[in-house]
């Protein structure tokens, strides 16, 4: 019993050490791209570690697909370097591409083939042997919910299933880095949920980069986010909202906003309409302090609601207001 526990602890420690010592799966440094004289992607740094789901968010034409194409080796960058699992994508493309799974915006399917044939060909092109191909095909089909569609022609499948076949070809060779360009585009809500679950599952063992112009998509799936605007990174960071400092306040009394702003925990107060104020707290202050100070004044608190900084606000702030 004690031996088992020791063994378990040892396994946990070893895994943690491996994860900590592992270099990031994908590193892009000063990645840029121009078409003729137009700079489509300005120099950009990206990093992806195992278990990361990095979302590239931006309006249409922001350069998301160009970045995805460069990371997958489909398009050479005009400048900068890309390292995948320690291999330089430009200098050692064959080794680097073994670790990449790529689903472009339009799934690259051969519509005259059956699902089984298509997936076998994809595995074969990735250098898998015949036996490995069979195993990989079964595993990829199971993951993407394609068990029942093996013999059907791809052109006869619905859009959702075709998208799943596209996903299956991207993961059939068990890559460390999975690059998905708008993976839920054109799917119905149930299919979107399934694809999201699949993406989260994939990220248990590898790193995933996905692009989208749909905010809830990124919010639901990713843990890190890069917002792009006209080929430029305007925000980069964790998806969890920053420290909450903004609150909506309703009081029993109706004091002047200057009096509220004069409270020690408050930086600024602004009257929204008759009964509501928007209050910004001092960094490090807690809402309980604000409530205590208001009660000391005898104003009485009716309502105190955090004003959440949603991804949408973040996105609008970043894309319209410059650097966030």
């Amino acid at each position, binding site marked *: 019993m004690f031996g088992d526990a020791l063994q378990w602890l040892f396994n946990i420690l070893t895994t943690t050490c491996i994860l900590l010592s592992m270099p990031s799966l994908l590193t892009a440094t000063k990645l840029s791209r121009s078409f003729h004289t137009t700079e489509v992607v300005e120099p950009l740094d990206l990093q992806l570690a195992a278990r990361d789901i990095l979302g590239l968010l931006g309006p249409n034409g922001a350069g998301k697909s160009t970045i995805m194409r460069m990371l997958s080796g489909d398009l050479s960058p005009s400048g900068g370097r890309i390292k995948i699992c320690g291999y330089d994508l430009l200098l050692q493309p064959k080794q680097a591409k073994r670790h990449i799974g790529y689903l472009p915006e339009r799934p690259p399917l051969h519509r005259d083939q059956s699902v089984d044939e298509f997936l076998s060909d994809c595995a074969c*092109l990735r250098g898998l042997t015949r036996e490995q191909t069979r195993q990989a095909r079964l595993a990829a089909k199971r993951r993407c919910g394609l068990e029942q569609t093996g013999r059907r022609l791809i052109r006869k499948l619905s859009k959702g299933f075709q998208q799943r076949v596209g996903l299956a070809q991207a993961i059939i060779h068990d890559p460390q880095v999975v690059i998905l360009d708008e993976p839920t585009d054109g799917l119905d809500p149930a299919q979107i949920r399934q694809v999201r679950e699949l993406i989260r599952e994939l990220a248990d063992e590898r790193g995933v980069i996905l692009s989208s112009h749909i905010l809830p998509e990124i919010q639901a799936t990713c843990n890190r986010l890069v917002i792009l605007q006209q080929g430029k990174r305007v925000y980069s960071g964790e998806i969890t909202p920053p420290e909450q400092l903004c609150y909506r306040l309703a009081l029993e009394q109706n004091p002047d906003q200057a009096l509220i702003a004069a409270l020690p925990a408050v930086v600024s107060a602004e009257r929204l309409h008759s009964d509501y104020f928007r209050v910004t707290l001092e960094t490090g202050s807690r809402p309980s302090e604000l409530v205590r100070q208001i009660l000391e004044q005898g104003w009485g608190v009716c309502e105190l609601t955090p004003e959440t900084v949603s991804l949408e606000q973040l996105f609008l702030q970043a894309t319209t207001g410059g650097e966030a």
Partner: protein
Amino acid sequence: MIWRLAWIEWRRLMRTPLAWIVLGLGLCLLSWQFLGTLEAFSGMPANHRNLGLSHHLGMQLFGLASVLILIITPILTTRSFSEAFRNGSYALLSSAPLSTLTILLGKFLAIQLFQILIVLAPLLLSLTLFNGTQLDLGLLASASLGLLLLSGSFTAIGLFISVQSDNPGIAAAGSYGLLLLISLLDQHTGGGSFIHWLAWPSHYLDMQLGLVRSSDLAFFLLLLLFFLGLALHRLDKRRRG
């Protein structure tokens, strides 16, 4: 990896109705020509027969085969790149661990594997007469080699045009234009000029008559390598954008 890709592409091509329609029509036309040649030769009085049956087959049957190859090749090469660019399936290859050269040669060999079926047809039809008559096997071998080299060069030209455009219609029209141009270059030019030398019919004619000359071999091989080289350059440039 080149052969692996060639095998995959060939198998994929053979799954399409297009391949079987092309093969079926090609065989029908060649058989018709074969029977016509045979009938004309057997009906000819003995004192009018200046050339043997093998020569007649070389000219008539292998002549038609070369025209068939000219018509078929752009249809096949257009599928290879232009259509793949358009429907997005090229990303499957460009993101796989394959070099541009591997992709180009794999696709080239896949088309050649298909063309060989057309190249072998006139030879096999002629060999059906093996028991009944004395065939000039050397001439048939030379004509078949000529047809193989011709199909290789045409494929290289077709692939070169195919990598230029995302529009299969434009790629097909371009391939036909270029192939017809090098077919007609010898029409109004002097016998010794370089432009005259660039036309393929005179080089192929030698081989149809059983003459394997190193200059003709060099012509076809140079044509093939030149256009494959250009196609490779263009594919690399496309990746660089």
